[in-house]
């Protein structure tokens, strides 16, 4: 699927588009902001903006990964991306404790391509 970027993401140069296309070349590819940031040499904020555009075009299915301080290395849950932070109290999927403050939580975004995407 071709995605015409035009002026939507002003920082996207031709080189960045090619780099991004390599990450999106097949359905089922999983991308995360820090991976995009490292591979393309851009900021996490710019990576998030790319994911938001892909999500708005329904080219990826993305979710907000929720990490709890009981085990910060493994996501304890996930909700769809773009719906705000999880409602509290939130029950941790790992320790099953009810959490009523965001201070105990960390977040990340993960997107999975639904089709092969070519940014132009």
């Amino acid at each position, binding site marked *: 699927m071709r995605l015409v970027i035009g*002026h*939507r*993401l*002003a*920082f996207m140069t031709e080189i960045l588009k090619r780099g991004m296309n390599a990450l999106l070349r097949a359905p089922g590819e999983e991308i995360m*902001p820090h991976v995009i940031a490292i591979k393309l040499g851009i*900021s*996490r*904020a*710019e*990576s*998030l*903006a790319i994911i*938001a*555009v892909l*999500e*708005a075009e329904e080219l990826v299915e993305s979710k907000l990964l929720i990490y709890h301080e009981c085990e910060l290395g493994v996501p304890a849950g996930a909700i769809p*991306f*773009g*719906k*705000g*932070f*999880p*409602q*509290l109290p939130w029950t941790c999927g790992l320790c099953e404790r009810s959490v*009523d403050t*965001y201070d105990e939580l960390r977040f990340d975004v993960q997107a999975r391509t639904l089709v092969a995407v070519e940014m132009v």
Partner: protein
Amino acid sequence: MRQMIAGMKQLDVSDPASDHLASYLYTADSRMAGLITELDDLMAEPRNDTMRKRAGEIMEMIAMLSFMALSGTSTIKSFQSAGPQIDLLVEGSDLHWKLVRKYCYFRKRRRGLVVEAKATGEKVNDAVFARLCAIMDHNLPHVGLGVFFTFNGASGFPTPESSRSLRTLKDCRLRQALYYARTRKPVIVFDSMDIRQLAQNGSLPQLVHEKVKEISEATGWATPPVASFCKRHTLPKHLRDLLI
């Protein structure tokens, strides 16, 4: 959170992608759900003076909690000025507020917004709507947005129950359009359906964004629930069929 906001800065507000990141500008206060239930209960039955007063207070509490939870808000005031009573005057100053302002279509150099809470059983009428417009013109020239918190909406606005789009401009809806055309300052109306959604994270900026857009678009439909913004189809059948 900071990353989401910084990501939003990369996008134009008219880009649908900014809706996804704007949802992180609002994390509802945990007290909101209880207040909304209490307001619903109070408005459901015939009320005496004490109940009317309590409903008014709760409406103001809901308005204040919702704007306190909006990212970038720095000051909230409520006061009896030398002139009119100001229910809530909300201002912000940092980058988050700048994005809120941009996403909600405030004009540049308009820093704040003013809220008028009306917990009555009737719709807000044109005189009340005109009063807020006049306050924005004469007392608060630095505000860029007016917001009514109501239970039953305002006269002339489409209702969620209506099965057809409202194709006439009259009463408050007419004044809203004329005032926006003259000053570029939107005045929007939250009804009970909108207020019930304020307990949901992400809802407030998206509701304001949709309501301000509606002033110009004038689709004649009530604001849909936030969860179905993307799935809303105002298309006629022959075009809607193409989506299947």
